[in-house]
């Protein structure tokens, strides 16, 4: 099956250099991005599952190895632009602990490390394009040298779609968080509905975990057959 990649509405994506996020002005290219025709190189893609296996789908732990924090389960569905699920899609997730501290050695935030929390997961989607991440709700944390920018609780996701140009790296936010309103990253997306799609939905749960649902929509749809 051939897939095609179409241009996106720029309002649904960040522009590049963003107000309130100083690093973007040092790193986003100053020259306009070039457009190119799509060949087999861009419209095929790696089978990353051959190199990237599942390594963790549960960051919360059990018994006396339980991570601290609100226990949550995030149900993420990976779909393409046709709404078709992507079974076998590889999904990477990472986030900070309940106190706002990452496992990364570059994190200098003065918040406690949780010895029972390791915030990096890699999952493979099942038949319906679904992955489930059992974890704890991440905390908020201040961004250094920004004069009061606090990141709201969020989970980073990295996913591969069907072709090279379907690659998606993004962040998922939580509903009802006051910091969502002022976050320079979430608000770099100018279209309100596009921002709201980056916020997970809390769904009723009878289990001991708060359950959130979320969609990752990767680029690409079935190519229209050429009429000749």
């Amino acid at each position, binding site marked *: 099956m051939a897939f095609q990649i179409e241009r*996106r509405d720029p309002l649904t994506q960040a522009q590049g250099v963003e107000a309130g996020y100083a690093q973007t002005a*040092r*790193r986003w290219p100053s*020259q306009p991005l070039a457009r190119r025709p799509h060949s087999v190189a861009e419209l095929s893609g790696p089978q990353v599952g051959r190199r990237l296996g599942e390594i963790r789908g549960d960051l919360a732990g059990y018994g006396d190895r339980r991570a601290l924090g609100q226990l949550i389960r995030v149900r993420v569905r990976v779909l393409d632009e046709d709404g078709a699920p992507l079974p076998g899609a590889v999904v990477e997730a990472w986030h900070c602990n309940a106190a706002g501290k990452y496992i990364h050695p570059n994190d200098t935030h003065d918040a406690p490390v949780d010895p029972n929390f390791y915030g990096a997961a890699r999952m493979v989607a099942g038949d319906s394009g679904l992955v489930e991440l059992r974890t704890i709700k991440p905390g908020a944390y201040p961004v250094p040298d920004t004069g009061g920018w606090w990141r709201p609780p969020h989970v980073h996701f990295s996913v591969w779609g069907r072709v090279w140009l379907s690659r998606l790296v993004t*962040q998922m936010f939580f509903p009802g968080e006051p910091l969502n309103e002022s976050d320079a990253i979430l608000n770099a997306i100018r279209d309100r509905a596009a921002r709201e799609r980056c916020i997970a939905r809390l769904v009723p749960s009878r289990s001991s975990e708060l359950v959130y649902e979320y969609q990752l929509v990767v680029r690409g749809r079935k190519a229209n057959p050429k009429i000749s």
Partner: protein
Amino acid sequence: MRLIPTAEMTLGPFFPREFAQGLHDLAAGAADAIEIIGCVTELDGRTLDNVVLEIWQADAAGRFDNPEFPGWGRAATDAQGNYLFRTVRPGACAGRAPHVNFLVLYSGLMRQLQTVMFFENSEDPVLACVKARERLIAKRETPNRYRFDIRLRGGEETPFFDD
């Protein structure tokens, strides 16, 4: 049903180190392996630590669907901004000159940056889309080593693509 692609957002500064380890070698001991090295810099030429680079390329025969060759790799820059891939030189394919597709992910990049490395100045429909085409052509440092530096902004800025 038509869904709108999810908004991209930055990788941030805390991409787990384990995710970028052990994935830079696509060559699997091939006798004709090559190295692709380079340095990633921002405005004013400052080098960048822990930039995540992913590549996608054809095999030596120009095939993108060879089950014996991954075609994909990932590396992160070190504290001096340097990265290294080991791979094989891709073949030409379907009107495309031999090339390696690069994707750059980093803190401060709200969207992934796409660029393409070529081995020599060639007739190619993607290379033809950029003005500073010499910046997409790797420098051959030794018979088996190519240098492809990536400047995100300013100076000899690397050409990037939007699709």
